[in-house]
């Protein structure tokens, strides 16, 4: 007994239970994430801001401050203005198409039919396949000579060989093509979001709507869609952020062509800043993403806060 009492009295080191304190342990756990964000997001961002107001190129790496000259130059460039509008068309076009496809996909997958589990697994494929692989496949489907789409249209008698569209060689068709590919990549995500949302709507509410006289369309657009809007909005916001900053599909399929018809901000910034070595103008181009992303992020944070209440 005496021994036990003695060991209790023995004063513990000040730091012995330091990790039991929530504030200390929490900081320790959060530190890697904060370091990661500071080093790999914060620092490059600050460097981009500085590059954009300097005359830095890889041939003349001077840190000479030139003010907003780079911005003035690119805004006056019609190619850049086209890129800016392309980015909006690309982003919102593919999101809208992806959402519509996602809603339909979710409604189809909610109905029981033989092989539904297999289809549910397959529908994730566009999202899971590496973007480079998928894009190469699409490139062949849109090829001017070997396009399976054109081949089908000709075989079905809708068009003749001479009328076959050159998907990636015509300005409007090329934009439609990259939008379709991006929507195809985004739509499994939309399906999952819609499925999660729709299955979370209580059956009682749907039954009540049916008994209250609502048909299919009214049930969908006055009951289900408004109820799942917060979830869909979060999904859409993520989609916008990913698409607005994306360059992979454009880079792999069209290289921004023909004549800049599919050039988007990410691609243009990469071409100017990295490929051509004009780092300062490349940084200025990329920074044009900032206002849009800022607005989107503010929306996202407000949405999350509203859902918490």
């Amino acid at each position, binding site marked *: 007994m005496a021994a036990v009492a003695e060991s209790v009295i023995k004063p513990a080191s000040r730091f012995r239970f330091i990790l039991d304190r929530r504030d200390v342990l929490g900081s320790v756990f959060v530190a890697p994430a904060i370091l990661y964000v500071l080093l790999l997001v914060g620092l490059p961002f600050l460097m981009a801001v500085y590059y954009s107001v300097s005359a830095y190129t890889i041939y003349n790496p001077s840190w000479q401050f030139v003010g907003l000259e780079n911005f003035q130059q690119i805004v006056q460039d019609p190619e850049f203005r086209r890129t800016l509008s392309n980015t909006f068309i690309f982003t919102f076009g593919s999101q809208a198409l992806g959402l519509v496809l996602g809603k339909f996909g979710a409604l189809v997958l909610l109905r029981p039919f033989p092989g539904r589990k297999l289809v549910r697994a397959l529908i994730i494929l566009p999202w899971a396949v590496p973007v480079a692989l998928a894009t190469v496949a699409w490139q062949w489907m849109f090829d001017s000579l070997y396009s399976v789409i054109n081949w089908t249209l000709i075989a079905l008698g809708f068009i003749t060989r001479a009328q076959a569209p050159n998907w990636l060689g015509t300005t409007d068709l090329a934009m439609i093509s990259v939008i379709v590919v991006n929507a195809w990549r985004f739509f499994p995500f939309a399906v999952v979001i819609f499925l999660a949302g729709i299955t979370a709507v209580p059956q*009682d509410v749907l039954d009540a709507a*049916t008994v*209250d006289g609502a*048909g299919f369309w009214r049930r969908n657009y006055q009951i289900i869609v408004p*109820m799942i809007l917060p979830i869909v909005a979060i999904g859409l916001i993520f989609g916008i952020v990913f698409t607005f900053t994306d360059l992979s599909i454009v880079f792999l399929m069209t290289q921004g062509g023909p004549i800049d018809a599919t050039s988007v901000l990410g691609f243009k910034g990469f071409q100017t800043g990295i490929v051509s070595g004009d780092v300062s103008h490349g940084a200025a181009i990329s920074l044009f993403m900032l206002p849009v992303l800022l607005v989107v992020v503010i929306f996202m944070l407000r949405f999350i806060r509203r859902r918490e209440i």
Partner: protein
Amino acid sequence: MAAVSTRDIVKKFGDVPAVNGISLTVPDGEFMVLLGPSGCGKTTFLRIICGLERQTSGDLLIGDDVVNDIPPRARGVAMMFQSYGLYPHFTVRNNIAFPLKTQSVPGADIAKKVEWASQLLGIGHLLDRRPRQLSGGERQRVALARALVREPTALLLDEPLSNLDAKLRASARLEIKQFQQRVGITTVYVTHDQVEAMGMGDRIAVIDQGQVRQVGTPTEIYDDPADRFVATFVGTPPMNIVARNGGFLGFRPENFLPKEMIDDEPCTEFRFRVDRSEYLGSERIVYGVLDGFDPGQVITAKLPPAHVAEESIRPGEWHPFAVRNSALRHFDKDGKRAVRA
């Protein structure tokens, strides 16, 4: 308003029958309670009446019309769901107005009817709130207002009180009953709670395994159960059933009394060994076994506490108990009610 009746309704999910041939008529203006244990098919039956499920076979009539293939919105029945099914993104006003909007009722009429329904249920001050800002009792009234606003021919209620706390449930029970009497609407009310069934129903249909076991007034159901299931399902504690002469003998715990308390009428005597007794304030529940019957079967007696002094009923001792012959119920070997064994 109209009568609702069914002819031999069967509903199978795969090979499993949920409703197994129910024929039931609810006359115009009656308050009919469907009472049964969970999983007995009562909710499925209600969903067939309102059209959310299609019966496998059988006919459903509302008024004089067979409505088997008429969609829910055209049947003119309203249903109130267990968790109310209020639209969370609408205000109370729009929740109540929704059934009218789907019928393309003109806006001015909608406002008038919403006003009428909300006054009827005393929720006029809640019209601009959303369902999540309401208490359980208020939600229930909104759901009732929404069900009534288009003046349905029949009102279907699926366990509407099960989400309320005990105190609120008692007052809501009274309110719904009074309300139904005032409006005079044909009502089918599903519950597993016999207190609700006994207290509210004009008539009760006791349902088990997809079949109606008995239809009758609360008195008939309680005093003259048609079979052993009804006898043991209704009543707390349930009726005591003992095997005798190849059949069964049933008696309610409150009719099973110490011999000295019965002196006016012919009665049947039992020797009763008390094992345990519970004092519940207004009554005393006594558990024990009967001499000469299955010693594993627990028999209950419900005694008025004032009559029996604490010391006269001692655990472990045999006491003379009896049941008035008029209170004995006889069942045949299949559990059906027999006239007299």
